[in-house]
């Protein structure tokens, strides 16, 4: 009997060690990416990077101020076009999702989340760019929003469903109309989770390059408003990386680092924003 016990202890230790090792292996890509990008990119980070426009080939120096601004612009537009419809669709699915129509909506969202981003880019190209007869940040924002939409919808729906029905009942019991109970109680309770999901969607979308190829395109100068072709960090990384210039390669690494930090910042601020609503625990 003691032998069996000892054997079980041994198996326990082995499996545990295997789990730890597996976790470490899984962390390797993450850590190595962070480390490598930081190492290669940190050298090019200086004030100029954030404030100056790109210089012509051959001249050293210059920065990616316009690309940074462009990415921010595009992300902003993507949020404006993608979050409200996505959240509302999610609310609809959570409330009425069992109807025939609801099942079709859910199916479409699932399918859309698998559509390649370049296809979305071409779609928006045909829809917006051809119509407007020029590239624009607006088109880029629309493309990114379409990419975000399924994720936001499904996240909202799933998180709303996780909110206990007892809260809705409590609200109804207080004489609150159904729609207000959903929005101000259920949605509010699910908000932290939804914010997280949205931020994940935004973070994914901020780094997309393919859809921007045909919509926002690129711009060596500042773009004003939302109606002109816009530079963006992912596009610049692509363009600079495939170029033969060493200087541009360095800048591409720095751009990658900045993009990484931007995504990190988005995540953290989203968490902080929602946590402060409840007060100290």
């Amino acid at each position, binding site marked *: 009997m003691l032998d069996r016990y000892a054997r079980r202890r041994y198996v326990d230790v082995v499996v545990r060690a295997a789990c730890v090792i597996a976790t470490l292996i899984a962390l390797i890509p993450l850590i190595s990416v962070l480390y490598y990008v930081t190492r290669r990119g940190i050298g090019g980070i200086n004030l100029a990077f954030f404030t100056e426009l790109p210089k012509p080939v051959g001249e050293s120096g210059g920065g990616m101020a316009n690309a940074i601004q462009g990415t921010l612009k595009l992300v902003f537009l993507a949020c404006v076009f993608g979050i409200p419809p996505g959240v509302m669709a999610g609310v609809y699915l959570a409330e009425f999702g069992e109807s025939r129509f609801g099942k079709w909506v859910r199916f479409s969202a699932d399918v859309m989340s698998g559509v390649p981003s370049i296809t979305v880019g071409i779609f928006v190209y045909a829809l917006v760019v051809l119509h407007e007869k020029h590239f624009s940040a607006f088109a880029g924002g629309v493309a990114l929003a379409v990419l975000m939409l399924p994720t936001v919808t499904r996240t909202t729906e799933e998180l709303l469903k996780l909110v206990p029905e007892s809260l809705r009942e*409590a609200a109804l*019991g207080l004489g609150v109309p159904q729609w207000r109970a959903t929005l101000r109680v259920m949605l509010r309770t699910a908000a932290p989770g939804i914010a997280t999901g949205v931020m994940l969607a935004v973070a994914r979308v901020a780094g997309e390059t393919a859809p921007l190829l045909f919509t926002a395109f690129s711009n060596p100068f500042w773009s004003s408003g939302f109606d002109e072709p816009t530079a963006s960090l992912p596009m610049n990384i692509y363009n600079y990386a495939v170029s033969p210039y060493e200087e541009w390669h360095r800048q591409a690494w720095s751009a990658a680092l900045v993009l990484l930090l931007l995504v990190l910042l988005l995540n953290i601020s989203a968490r902080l924003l929602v946590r402060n609503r409840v007060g100290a625990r």
Partner: protein
Amino acid sequence: MSGASSQSKISRTNQRKGASGDDKSRWDEVSVSTLVPKMRTTDLHAYFGQAEVLKGISLQIAEKQVTAVIGPSGCGKSTFVRCLNRMHEVIPGARATGQVLLDKQDIYQGDVDAVRVRRRVGMVFQKPNPFPTMSIRDNVLAGLRLNGERPDDPDAVVEKMLQRVALWDEVKDILGRAGTGLSGGQQQRLCIARSLALEPEVLLMDEPCSALDPIATARVEELIHELRKSYTIVIVTHNMQQAARVANFTAFFYLGKLIEHDRTDVIFTRPKEQRTEDYITGRFG
């Protein structure tokens, strides 16, 4: 012992008895037929889809008294209580027919707004459900705020409601803390305060103590005893001893029908129906 001191003892006892509101001799004369009903149901039927869960319930709820609804699982007691504030129909596929009078008004009549009914007939649920995203203070005010009302002096409202549920002293320094940070019994009292903030006339309680430990239960029962002075209370409970402790009137439901409705002391000492007797003495199944 001299005669004088025993005389004074007798007069002091009589004085004490007269001072309390519950004079035993007058209570004995009260019966179901003499009570003033705050709510009355007439031939109430309730359905979940095709299944008939309540089969013609005609029951009066006495004003400013506690009425307990007891019965085995599935007898329809929760459904009945949910019909009293039109929460039953919130469930998809659920409907009810018949009359439910609140004072003299039928709340199931076509043009009556269910939402308004729920302002007058509040509800407390089995599992305490304070809103997790709100502080204790905001929870108490939630009913008002969610309806777009802004009380002139919210702090006064919060204090008054928390005093009424005997929670003020325990939480007055932590009003900013999340509602879910309290113990189960405190959460339930908070939910009661939240309902009371809307100044309902009737308070429905669906097994309010099921999730609480005995001490918290005792406090909620004490609270019910206090609240009776100002509100009409209907409490669903599967704990018969609780019904015996807390309620003035008790209604026994079985398989969707009302079997017996009488003063609690009558139900628990000499019930008229054999099925009532069998249920409360444990001779069922």
